[in-house]
Structures are given as C-alpha cells and as structure tokens.
C-alpha cells in the first residue's frame, strides 16, 4: 500500500510542477479545452509518470550518444596539385573586372586574408592547389592552395567554398 501511495505522490508532485510552470498560460488563455487538456495531462502524469521519466532519460542519453565530434577538415599530400612558388600563385590569382569593381591585387577582395596567410609562410615556401569535398553537416567543395612541406599538410588558404548538398 505504501508503494502505491509513494507512486501517486510522485505523480502528484509532477502535476503540481506542471501547474506551476503553466499557471500563467492557463490564467491568460483560459478555456474549457485548455482545462480538459491540463486535467488529462495531470491524470497521465499521476499514473504513468515512470514511462515519461524513462522516455526523458532515454532521449537525453540517446541524444548525447548521437552527438559526434565534427570531422576536421584536412588535406592529404596526394590530394595536392603541382607545387608553385608564392610569386607564381600571386600572378595566377589576379582578378579582373571590366567595371573595376575589384582591387588589382592577388585574390581580389580576398587579398587581406591572403596577406595574412602569406605572412605565416616561410620564405621560399611552395604552394599547391587543391579541390576537396568535405562533409560537415552540409557537403561543400573547398578549393584553394596548401603549403607543401615534408610532413602532413597543415596550412591552407581557401579561394572558394561551394555548397554541393
């Protein structure tokens, strides 16, 4: 008997909690339908609260397990094209516009970002073009240049990001 009493008491406490959190809505938007819905919710809580609690815990655990770290963007050496000098890249990447709506600098309006990237390169560095599809929720094609070295590729500059799906 005490178990039944305890069971219903926990359900009643949940009902009170529900009433407290919805009191303003019920007061301002009082209608017969809302009252019936509320009473039904209290009855369900009173009798079936373990199922609700199980669902809430299960849902939060499953949701947490489903969250995976985002795949980091990386480029492999075999994905790189032919290496070029910085000067050659800058010469190739001049953007022209008949209306003069772009600066006469390497990478046009992206020049400030390029200048920042170039400042971090060792003198005599070589760069190689790449074009790579990366999935991170959405699928995009990344195009740009990466620094060529002996080890893994760690520095790159994007010139275009195109959404594929």
């Amino acid at each position, binding site marked *: 008997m005490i178990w039944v009493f305890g069971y219903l008491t926990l359900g009643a406490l949940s009902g009170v909690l529900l009433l407290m959190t919805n009191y303003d809505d019920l007061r301002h938007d009082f209608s017969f339908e809302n009252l019936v819905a509320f009473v039904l919710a209290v009855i369900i809580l009173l009798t079936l609260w373990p199922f609700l609690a199980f669902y809430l815990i299960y849902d939060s655990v499953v949701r947490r397990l489903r969250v995976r770290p985002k795949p980091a963007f990386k480029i492999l050496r075999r994905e790189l094209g032919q290496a070029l000098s910085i000067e050659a890249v800058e010469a190739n990447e001049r953007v022209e516009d008949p209306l003069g709506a772009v600066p006469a600098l390497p990478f046009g309006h992206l020049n*400030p970002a390029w200048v920042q990237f170039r400042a971090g390169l060792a003198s005599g560095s070589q760069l190689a073009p790449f074009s790579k599809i990366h999935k991170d929720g959405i699928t995009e094609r990344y195009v740009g240049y990466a620094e060529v070295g002996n080890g893994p590729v760690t520095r790159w500059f994007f010139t275009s990001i195109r959404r594929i799906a």
Partner: protein
Amino acid sequence: MTAQMPERLTYKGEKLSLAEQPLSAFFKLARSKPAMAETSSALWRGYIGSWEINDGRLYLIDIDGELEDGSALTLDLLFPGFPDRVFAHWYSGDMRIPQGKLLDYIHAGYASVYERDLILSIECGVVVRETVRHNGKAPKGSGPEGYRIEALTAFGGRKARTQK
C-alpha cells in the same frame, strides 16, 4: 528558424528576391565578419544585400544592415575603396530565385516552395547557366505572386527592417 528575408537581385531589369547569401561565402573565406546587430528573427544574418547581374557578372551594389554598435553597415566598410560596386568573384554556386505564387509555406530559412525557381549557376562571380525549375501550379484565386514571410519577431530597441 523563422523564414528569412531574401537578398535583393536586379536581373534583366527585374527586381527579384534571392534565396541565397553570397556574402556568407565571403565571410567564411575572408575569415572575418563584422558583428551585426540582431534586429529580427527573420534576419539572423543581420543584413540584406542588393545584387545585380551586369553583363553576366554578379555584383554587390548595396547593403542594408546595422552593426552591434548601432552604426550602419556599408559597402565601403566591408570592401574598403569600393563603396558602390563589388564584383563577387569569390562566389560559386547555384542562386535560387523563387518566382510565381506560393505553393507551400514553410516557416524556416528559404524553404517555402513557389511555382518556379529561376536558378542562376555562378562560377567565380560569372553566370554560366540559367535554368528554370517548375514546382507546380497554384490554384486559381490563391494569393499574390512573390516571396512572402508570414511571421517574424522584431527585437526590441533596434531598428526593424522591412522588405523593400
């Protein structure tokens, strides 16, 4: 997410609604974006760009937005030395321009479906293809043509923008 206000596009003399944000790619590539004021749930990006296709090339010709400090966002601020016209050479992708009457209103992003979608495929700021996708025919007597947002929340104390 609330349905979002479109960008503006002038194409072949027509003023159209553009369901794409070519500036988003710029901010990603430039690795910098000014802090915009949030003025409305229908404008999470914080600005509306005005674009033009001129001789097959995509240009940003104006921007309407507000920075967090309350000052106006201008083209010259984003692209110093280019206050009137910016060639969008950084942009490659398919620009969707919804046309005709509304078939299915979806209150999220640019998800609503209209009778037609004009798709302009752009490579490095240059139009390479133009296609039209037919999505269906609205019943007779249905609402007016054009892009529509049915609800939004304007955030208090800041200038709320409206579609022009």
